[in-house]
């Protein structure tokens, strides 16, 4: 299998993950799609240097989160969406509207957090252990625990407010 095919398969299998990362770090659909494309592009750029030292998913989480952190902080950042026919990134509204609303509330709360905490809560929601979160984010396991408690408190007070 060529490198290009391997890359396309990897992205194809992990589109949901990229969709979710790009959603927690952006405020609207256009920005979200722009970040989605940027993560795919950055993954391609780094693909030949991925030597399998870490799990593919760990590597992809890291690329996605690092791209979000840098891309969204660029000076004079403007959306540079590649307009392409057939490029569908939106979730269709077939789901239960109540569920949809709860998900939107969840996203809203996550987006209130700072960049690193957003990544930590995202990885927690993805079912990652504290050790895995520490590996991806680069902070110590105890710091992950401390931050998780703070995030919990913050989210609780936001819900009450």
């Amino acid at each position, binding site marked *: 299998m060529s490198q*290009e095919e391997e*890359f*396309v*398969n990897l*992205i*194809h299998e992990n589109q*949901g993950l990229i*969709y*979710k990362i790009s959603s927690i770090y952006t405020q609207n659909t256009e920005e979200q799609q722009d970040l989605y*494309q940027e993560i*795919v*592009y*950055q993954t*391609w*750029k*780094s693909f030949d*240097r*991925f030597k399998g030292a870490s799990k593919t998913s760990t*590597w992809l989480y*890291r*690329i996605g989160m*690092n*791209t979000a*952190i*840098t891309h969204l*902080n*660029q*000076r004079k950042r*403007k959306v*540079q969406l*590649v307009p*392409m026919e*057939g*490029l*569908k*990134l939106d*979730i269709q509204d077939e789901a239960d509207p109540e*569920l949809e609303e*709860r*998900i939107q509330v*969840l996203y809203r*709360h996550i987006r209130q957090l*700072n*960049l*690193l905490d957003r*990544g930590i*809560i995202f990885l*927690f*929601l*993805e*079912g990652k252990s504290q050790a895995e979160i520490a*590996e*991806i*984010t*680069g*902070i110590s396991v105890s710091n992950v625990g401390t931050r*998780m408690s703070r995030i*919990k408190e913050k*989210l609780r007070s936001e*819900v009450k407010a």
Partner: protein
Amino acid sequence: MELEDMKSLWAEHSQQIDKQEKIKKELLMKMTKKKYLNKLGGIYLPEILGAVICLAYAGFFIFQIGKLELPWNQVLSIFNTTLLIVLPILSLYSLFKLGRIDISEGSSAEILERFTKNRIFFWKVQRFAMVISGLFAISILPPLAELVGKIDLLSSRQFWMVYVPIGVILVYIFTKVTMKKYQKALSNSEQVLKELEV
């Protein structure tokens, strides 16, 4: 909403996403290649163009310095030429430094720290360039006046009574407004670094 409730809601959300139609494989590569071309033109081109214009002016001045007879105008044109060379190089350097971070190497915390530090450097360069540009805007007039119209602007009352005060006021207002913006950006970046330490 408790974290465990959030987790089960997220699991439902993930299932919902997995059921969605995926982007076709052939489109993924096409999109990536287009993104690459877009980035080349979008980010660095305006900065590079600006630098080329500055360097072209610097080249023009280097060839014109010999034609200047008034010693003060020679000094000013050397000062202006140096600025036209140094400022765009410094600005481009700080911009490339920002873009050069390899996001595949390092954890999110490291990337955030490195990127924020580079961004602080970038804002400081911009702030410095802004102040110097004000000086440039005023000091370029006397040598230009001599080159274009053989006028000794430095000996003219009009220059000191009209051009300089107007220039200083405009530069002051402009600097004040932009400094506020840069200061805000710097404070935001420093706040990100503080949050990392906590």
